[in-house]
């Protein structure tokens, strides 16, 4: 069941994560609401991937709490309510899978012990491929796709999951213009459907058209606001020139 637009779907309270000696996230408090597109912006190493991991409950917290739909992130994941789209750099181009097989993996959480897909699952996969315009390439090997097509295939996998919250790691990085426009259009549609999108990006210029809010991050939270406010020069200066020495 999709949350009502504006309803809080995830709440981070004083979230602090340490990776060895390094402080990866420092006391982040944040609410993510349904039907919005939030963009995570920050330097490499600012904690964007760690924040995704924290929302999914995949990283131990040194301090603080994360709740998703009022429960633990693990419960939300097990219920299939959070989908994650990785950057896709780690995909083995020789892996013997068709594009449709990869997208079907988005349905696995809903299937029985053998993960045998039913007609409804094939339907969901076809619909997801249709949304990212990859139907014609459904039977192609995943390794033969271009960077942009591969990104769209991973997006289709996240869509096939029919999750309420989609976390997208650099969806616009290294994609062709057509793929970029397609992905941006799908994000708008998802928000209109009441789904929640959180994406990380370095493409600041396009954010006013693509995101409702910008979450500016530099291990700690610089600001969360509308793009016009959050991307003001003084804010960006704080995010991109902040002292990044490990704070213990």
């Amino acid at each position, binding site marked *: 069941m999709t949350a009502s637009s504006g309803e809080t779907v995830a709440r981070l309270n004083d979230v602090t994560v340490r990776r060895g000696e390094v402080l990866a996230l420092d006391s982040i408090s944040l609410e993510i609401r349904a039907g919005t597109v939030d963009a995570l912006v920050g330097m490499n190493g600012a904690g964007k991937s760690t924040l995704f991991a924290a929302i999914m409950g995949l990283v131990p917290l040194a301090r603080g709490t994360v709740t998703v739909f009022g429960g633990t992130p693990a419960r939300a994941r097990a219920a299939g309510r959070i989908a994650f789209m990785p950057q896709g750099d780690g995909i083995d181009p020789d892996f013997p899978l068709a594009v449709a097989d990869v997208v079907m993996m988005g349905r696995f959480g809903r299937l029985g012990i053998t*993960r045998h897909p039913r007609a409804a699952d094939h339907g969901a996969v076809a619909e997801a491929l249709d949304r990212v315009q990859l139907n014609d390439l459904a039977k192609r090997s995943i390794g033969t796709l271009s960077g942009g097509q591969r990104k769209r295939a991973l997006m289709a996998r996240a869509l096939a999951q029919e999750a309420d919250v989609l976390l997208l790691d650099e969806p616009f990085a290294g994609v062709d213009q057509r793929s970029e426009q397609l992905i941006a259009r799908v994000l708008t549609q998802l928000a209109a459907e009441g789904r929640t999108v959180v994406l990380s990006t370095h493409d600041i210029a396009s954010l006013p058209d693509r995101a409702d809010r910008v979450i500016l991050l530099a291990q700690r939270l610089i600001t969360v606001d509308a793009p016009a406010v959050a991307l003001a020069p003084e804010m960006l200066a704080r995010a991109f020139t902040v002292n990044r020495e490990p704070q213990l």
Partner: protein
Amino acid sequence: MNLIDLLMQPFSYDFMVRAMTATTIAAVVCALLSCWLVLIGWSLMGDAVSHAVLPGVVLAYLVGAPFALGALIFGLLAVLLIGVIRDTSRVKEDAAIGIVFTSLFALGIVLVSVVPSQVDLSHIVFGNVLGVSTFDLAQIAVLGGVAIAVLLVKRRDLTLFAFDPAHAHAIGISPRMLSATLLGVLALTAVVSLQIVGVVLVVALLIIPGATAHLLTDRIGRMLVIAPVIAASCSIAGVYVSFYLDIAPGGAVVLANAVVFTAVYLFSPRHGVIGRALTRRRIIEVVAG
């Protein structure tokens, strides 16, 4: 002697029937598993587990337990130790594998040298397929059946784990559990294959069929059919050849697999070295008109 007689003669001996059946079961189990091992890059893990079972076999003999039980315990112990060393030190996985399997294999050799027993080291190291008893065959069939059942039931999860363990984690499927399942089946498979080709050559059956199938198809589903078919055919061919040429059956089975791999490596239409060159040439000819 006509061809039919030639083909049927080995079957007039009970030990040959048992050898053929046991080898085929072990080859099919190994081949199925090998598909995921080569895709994940765990070929060395197969080597490690198959060697590490040696002390388990010797100790099982000492206490009068089934060899399979001792081997299974030490196979799982090896997997556990590799994981512990990898996760709790800066030693990388390949080094951890090397340390654990050579140490356990050495322990096995030492045990064999000090324990007065009828355990023939050469049978464990190189296999003794012609000595497979009815009890051994039943044991191989049961353990092999369990391994095949687990692999087939969990095949989609294992493919997900091999392709993108992070996605498995993100949708609530434990990669750790799938890893443990695969390694548990690997230990079971090493036990099944121990008597057929011995610990040294088990790794061949755990790598070559999967690698061969990967050169022939771009779909995991087809790999899971091609690899066992190739492995079973090579097993039967190997045992036949060993019967007529009076050579070691374990070695003959592995060599048959190696011959098929070489042919596929060279001539596979899409991924063979010569196959690819011919395709390129045809494209150039078409482009040049």
